[in-house]
């Protein structure tokens, strides 16, 4: 039967699922656009500059003289100016690139407004000053205060900056410094753990602006004690409770909970308290007063100390207002209850490694600590000077404001940033290695450096717990990117979408909680605290009160957050087990964005995405409209997160934006990482940072001390979404090599690769090494200075001065060979006194390179250094083609050295005439299990034959961000290749076909920075150490190759005594000594008398000559200097 056309029904359309899941990938570039790769650093720094610094100034706003309180300086405002430098009283604006080249610090003035008093007594006037500079604050690149913010690509180019550079670091004295993200246990939270002795303890590390303390409640032999640094021994907790005013035992039990099991656990402690005859607050305080740590040399009355300790040190994070200790009591009771829970049920012990219990400290917080310390120090200094002036009473026109100096803050900040040592006595903080020089080996290395999270505790500990992969790291910290060796698992890297929060205003949130129905603590009796139908509400570690409908409260809070009424990073977490609602707004929590779903249906619809593609909707709009929200690790526990849309579960509350965002930047470069054995991805994360390539768009205008560049870098044929997002396709570090997986020539064992000489001729793996050397023209005290002379073209050294221009400085473009002079410098022979006619002696700087190396002077830059000396920087360039021994690696942790280089005609070729660039041994596969590499080869081959870049994003197959092997095989077959990627190859040597099909195709190969040219070393004769007369050590000193003790042991075992003699003495430090046969001491040789003489026997009668290692003679003399007499007993041999 014919159906009219318009009535025909597309059955397939009707049968298809009603709606397809929306491709949410587009959110990611949008997210990174608003966020950048290092938003965590920038946010933290911006928060410091905009908010935190004002708080610090406000908290320390008044400097008052202790002698005359009427004399003061008051800070009224603070701001950070534009990055600039003051040279000879003229202010010059700074750009980051200028700072890099001229070794200056990229910093901006800290400007304060002050009111102060001028003059004394009757003539005192109150004056005001604005924009007084108190120091210079190093500016983070791309932060709000940096000149680069908001600039487009062309403007950045004009400033000499790379648009792909993420910023987030500082420039201190010309070097780029990163403040590493510090990981630490969260402050002000109750943590239940077992201590070293196996006791269960509940501990709180309190940290407020005023004090830092650690409070530990522990159970020992059924009794419960409080451990506090102020008490040398643990004190019974019941006494402490009584001392805080809870005199009734019943109330304590009620506070902990009515459950008889709690009471039973508490009973021994109550009994102990009773046996000590402590029944009221007075008795308890007296008891505690006796327990307080006694200071050896203080006769301060101990009385009343206990109360102040309880007020200020014990649980310092819980404030005591008007001697109201009740919040503290309740807090202690909650700690007790949590601890008892853990005693009754081991599951309640907290996991210290749980990411939700961690906080990340970022550059802003660290700098703020530093600044606070320096600011207080400066204020103290000002006060001291003020007092001094007042006591001397000499100042007529006494002007306070002159005491504000700028050097201490500037130098303190600069020093801390450049050394990485945070030594803040005020905060009991002594940390080393907080900053590192930004790795500029490759683009990925520098981006990866910015996401690095370094741990607080020392690395040598052989514990596995903190090193293990934590399930709560999911999506927050990259599971792959961690170093090997001692820091394995401790140093981590942030995942692609991780955000680290900054502090948020607490006050409004607390009052909001109360208005949402939280019953305050003041209104609650002890009994009501733990009523079964209510949950405690804990805000940033502080107990606010309780709520009878916790779920409703939580959902109300979340609604407000989604509506944008409270900050998007506030987390609301209902813990059913602990019967608590945790609300957190503190800084340092890690969180990530997720799509909100209602009963499994995504709130993001196709039209939203369309609007975004059209450019009318940004990521922030998604956030503002409640389509996306940030969840931190704790709140994730309340969410059921689906990987993909359309999973048929009712309770799904959120949907991942993209699964591959659980990986970080470095792991994101690996194609098909989900097909690889896990450690291989970890290896690649480490190796990707050593790969040569492009560093930044401004790489040729930089003056780094060492720079490795690839001559012809390529973008990988097999890309991932992360590669496009971070810009690795624009600043690649590798080349697409056609690889044949076969064995060839035997020079490919142990992961070595065989390379095609013609490929190398045509530029494969060619790299440029740029090294910087500096010449400084020193100024001396007697008004003399180093000078540069015009080269003497006929002098003794004229052949070494070929590269010099007429000005005595090497000319760019000249070929420089080892021992060539690149700056004809002369230094004054007399730098002490001011005599006339000072002679100069030459002090050439010569190029030290490998023999036969042909380097070129790339660039010469003249600048002045920190001490205003003329500073000449030379960049010397060396172009290298790969040679046997150079290290290469694919993106799958498969590194290998070049084993041999073979002529193209000897290489196998395919039926299409394709000849591989390199040959890799197939034995590299079975044990490494890098299936991803094989898929990369297939995908790359399909990519070149069909002209489309293929994708291999992690876990990308379901969402279409990775091509499937089936699809790739189909393309290969269409283009006439075998589906399995294996080609029919002819041997280049015999001309016959090979007896196997060869797996061949393009793989992205990285050239690593390790090259033989920098490592190879041998020596026959050479320099010796002065002290021991033994050969020097190390390649840089042209040292000898040591025959170590183990090698010596082999020779001893073998009985090769003459060889040992030769190696250890003849070739090392032979020395002829005169030994006295009588006294056995060493004598000397008298050249006049031509005999040996013993200086202790005072004659030359019984002297024998013998050979000794010089080190042995040295040992004898050193022993003698310690009053030990070594005597040699000689026998006839």
């Amino acid at each position, binding site marked *: 039967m014919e159906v009219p056309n318009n009535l025909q029904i597309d059955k397939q359309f009707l049968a298809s699922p009603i709606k397809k899941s929306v491709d949410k990938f587009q959110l990611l570039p949008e997210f990174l656009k608003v966020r950048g790769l290092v938003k965590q650093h920038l946010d933290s720094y911006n928060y410091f500059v905009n908010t935190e610094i004002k708080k610090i100034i406000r908290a320390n706003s008044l400097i008052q003289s202790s002698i005359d309180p009427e004399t003061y300086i008051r800070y009224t405002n603070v701001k950070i100016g534009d990055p600039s430098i003051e040279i000879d009283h003229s202010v010059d604006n700074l750009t980051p690139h200028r700072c890099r080249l001229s070794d200056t610090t990229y910093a901006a003035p800290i400007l304060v407004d002050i009111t102060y008093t001028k003059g004394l007594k009757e003539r005192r006037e109150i004056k005001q000053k604005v924009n007084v500079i108190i120091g210079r604050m190093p500016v983070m690149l791309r932060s709000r205060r940096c000149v680069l913010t908001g600039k487009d690509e062309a403007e950045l180019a004009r400033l000499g900056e790379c648009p792909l550079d993420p910023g987030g670091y500082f420039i201190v004295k010309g070097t780029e410094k990163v403040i590493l993200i510090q990981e630490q246990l969260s402050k002000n939270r109750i943590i239940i753990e077992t201590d070293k002795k196996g006791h269960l303890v509940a501990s709180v590390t309190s940290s407020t602006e005023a004090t830092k303390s650690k409070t530990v409640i522990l159970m020992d032999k059924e009794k419960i004690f409080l451990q506090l640094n102020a008490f040398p021994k643990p004190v019974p907790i019941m006494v402490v409770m009584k001392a805080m005013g809870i005199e009734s035992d019943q109330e304590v039990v009620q506070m902990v909970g009515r459950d008889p099991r709690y009471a039973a656990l508490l009973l021994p402690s109550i009994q102990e308290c009773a046996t000590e005859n402590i029944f009221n607050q007075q008795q308890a305080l007296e008891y505690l007063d006796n327990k307080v740590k006694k200071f050896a040399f203080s006769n301060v009355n101990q009385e009343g100390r206990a109360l102040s300790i309880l007020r200020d040190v014990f649980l310092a994070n819980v404030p005591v207002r008007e001697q109201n200790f009740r919040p503290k009591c309740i807090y202690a009771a909650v700690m007790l209850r949590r601890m008892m829970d853990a005693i009754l049920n081991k599951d309640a012990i907290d996991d210290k490694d749980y990411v939700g219990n961690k906080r990340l400290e970022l550059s802003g917080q660290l700098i703020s600590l530093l600044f606070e310390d320096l600011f207080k120090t400066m204020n103290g200094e000002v006060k001291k000077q003020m007092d001094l002036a007042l006591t001397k009473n000499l100042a007529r026109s006494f002007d306070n404001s002159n005491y504000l100096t700028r050097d201490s803050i500037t130098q303190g900040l600069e020093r801390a940033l450049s050394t990485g040592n945070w030594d803040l006595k005020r905060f009991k903080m002594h940390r080393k290695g907080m900053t590192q020089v930004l790795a500029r080996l490759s683009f990925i290395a520098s981006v990866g450096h910015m996401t690095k999270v370094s741990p607080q505790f020392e690395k040598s500990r052989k514990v596995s717990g903190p090193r293990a992969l934590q399930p709560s790291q999911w999506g927050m910290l990259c599971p792959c990117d961690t170093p090997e060796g001692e820091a394995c698992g401790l140093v981590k890297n942030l995942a692609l979408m991780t955000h680290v929060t900054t502090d948020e205003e607490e006050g409004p949130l607390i009052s909001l909680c109360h208005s949402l129905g939280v019953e305050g603590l003041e209104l609650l009796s002890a009994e009501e605290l733990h009523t079964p139908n209510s949950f405690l509400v804990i805000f940033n570690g502080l107990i606010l009160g309780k709520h009878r409908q916790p779920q409703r409260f939580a959902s109300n809070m979340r609604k407000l957050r989604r509506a944008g009424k409270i900050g998007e990073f506030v987390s609301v977490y209902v813990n059913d087990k602990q019967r608590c609602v945790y609300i957190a707004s503190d800084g340092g929590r890690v969180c990530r964005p997720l799509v909100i779903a209602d009963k499994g249906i995504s709130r993001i619809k196709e039209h939203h995405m369309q609007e975004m593609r059209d450019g009318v909707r940004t990521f922030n709009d998604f956030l503002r409209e409640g389509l996306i929200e940030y969840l931190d690790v704790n709140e994730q526990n309340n969410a059921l997160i689906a990987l993909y849309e359309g999973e048929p579960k009712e309770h799904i509350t959120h949907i991942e934006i993209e699964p591959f965002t659980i990986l970080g930047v470095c792991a994101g470069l690996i194609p098909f990482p989900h097909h690889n054995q896990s450690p291989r991805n970890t290896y690649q994360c480490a190796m990707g940072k050593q790969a040569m390539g492009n560093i930044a768009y401004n790489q040729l205008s930089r003056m780094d001390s060492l720079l490795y560049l690839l001559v012809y870098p390529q973008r990988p044929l097999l890309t991932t979404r992360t590669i496009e997002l971070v810009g690795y396709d624009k600043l690649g570090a590798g080349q697409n090599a056609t690889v044949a997986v076969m064995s060839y020539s035997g020079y490919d064992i142990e992961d070595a690769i065989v390379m095609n000489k013609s490929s190398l001729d045509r530029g494969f793996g060619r790299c440029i090494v740029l090294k910087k050397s500096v010449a400084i023209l020193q100024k001396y005290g007697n008004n003399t200075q180093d000078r540069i002379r015009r080269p003497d073209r006929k002098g003794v050294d004229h052949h070494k001065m070929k590269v010099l221009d007429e000005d005595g400085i090497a000319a760019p473009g000249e070929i420089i060979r080892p021992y060539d002079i690149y700056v004809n410098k002369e230094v004054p022979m007399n730098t002490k006194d001011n005599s006339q006619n000072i002679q100069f002696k030459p002090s050439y700087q010569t190029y030290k390179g490998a023999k036969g190396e042909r380097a070129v002077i790339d660039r010469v830059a003249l600048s002045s250094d920190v001490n205003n000396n003329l500073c000449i920087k030379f960049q010397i360039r060396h172009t290298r083609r790969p040679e046997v021994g150079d290290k290469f690696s694919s993106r799958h942790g498969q590194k290998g050295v070049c084993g041999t280089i073979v002529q193209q005609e000897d290489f196998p070729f395919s039926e299409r*005439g394709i000849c591989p660039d390199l040959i890799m041994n197939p034995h590299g596969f079975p044990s490494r299990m890098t299936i991803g590499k094989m898929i990369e080869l297939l995908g790359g081959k399909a990519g070149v034959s069909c002209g489309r870049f293929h994708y291999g994003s992690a876990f990308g197959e379901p969402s279409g961000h990775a091509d499937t092997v089936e699809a790739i095989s189909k393309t290969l077959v269409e283009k006439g290749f075998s589906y399995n990627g294996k*080609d029919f190859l002819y041997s280049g040597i015999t001309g016959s076909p090979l007896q196997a099909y060869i797996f061949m195709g393009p793989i992205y190969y990285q050239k690593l920075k390790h090259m033989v040219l920098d490592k190879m070393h041998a020596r026959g004769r050479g320099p010796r150490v002065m002290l021991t007369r033994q050969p020097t050590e190390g390649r840089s000193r042209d040292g000898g190759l040591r025959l170590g003790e183990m090698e010596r042991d082999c020779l001893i075992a073998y009985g090769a005594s003459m060889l040992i003699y030769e190696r250890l003495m003849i070739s090392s430090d032979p020395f002829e000594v005169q030994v006295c046969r009588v006294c056995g001491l060493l004598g000397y040789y008298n050249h006049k008398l031509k005999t040996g003489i013993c200086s202790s026997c005072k004659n030359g009668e019984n002297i024998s000559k013998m050979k000794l290692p010089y080190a042995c003679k040295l040992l004898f003399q050193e022993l003698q200097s310690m009053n030990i007499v070594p005597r040699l007993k000689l026998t006839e041999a």
Partner: protein
Amino acid sequence: MPKVSALNMPDVPMGQLPPHLELQRTRVSCDKDAPTHTENVQSAGAYTSVGVDNSLCLDQFRKNFRVTVVRLTEDDMEFDMIGIDPSIANAFRRILISEVPTMAIEKVLIKNSTTLVQDEVLAHRLGLIPIKADPRLFEYTSENDNPNEKNEKNTIVFKLHAKCKRGEPRLPVKSDQLKWLPGGSEFKVEKPSGPDSTPETSPQNKYTNFSCNQDSMPQFANNPIVPKHPDIIISKLGPGQEIELEAHAVKGMGKTHAKWSPVSTAWYRMLPEVVLLQDIEDELAEELVKKCPAKVFDIEDLGKGKKKATVARPRSCTLCRECIREENWEKRVSLRRVKDHFIFTIESSGALPPEELFTEAVKILEEKCERVIAELS
């Protein structure tokens, strides 16, 4: 019963190989998992037991050897070479890649280069530019770098002077800006000034020592030397940047550096032979035709709705093995390569036309043989 020799096998034809051995001798069979019988049987006495003489006979070779040109364009060429051993075909390929000489830029004298491209890289790029100059008209230069020995017979000099004026957009420098200097180098040798400096006019002052202009020589008169392709980007100049250099091209061989290789690549493949071991009909036939991406098979209509697969274009087989990939197909289709039939492809890089390249290669091989014979006798 009469005694019969074990070797007396009347059913075995003497003087002729049994079919399976013949197949192994002349064909590479490309099975699903691996190619087999790839090697050639070299030994003359390999088949004596069946009475077959396997020795190579020049007359036989003369009779059987054939060359047919399939395709010939300016730059590339495909021809069939039939009746030859793979080792000899391979020798031609190897010689083409590495031993046929060409001219390529070897020395670059840079007077000024303010581009971003580093001098070494620039020189390397220049070296790889193919030059349209017949290498047979030139001699090899001696190893040492003496300007006196650089004459019109062994050196080609190019000049490159490009400048991007300030205020102008970026300027790509392409290979057509390399200008041939038939009179040799124009740069003067900078000698440290002194009393012993040679007079200005002496040839010592130049980097080459040409006795006459190259364009006055008959072979170049109407045939100026230029880079083969005019549009190879050498560098890009930003405003204010300038390149001024001289490039000296000399004769060399591909085994020294790939820039002297006269071919982009030269290779051969053995003639594909696709044999249907069974009659493949109807659905199977259609399936087979559909399988092959290279369209090797066709369908022949047998009438009465019956169809049969035929091998129509075996030459286009790329050996993707799709036709034998599935179960049971290996016994229906057999993919083979004819061992003495080579489809040879030469992609010239431009100095010489491909057909001349091949004859050059033959000459070089001949020379080598003569050298061996001379050494032996």
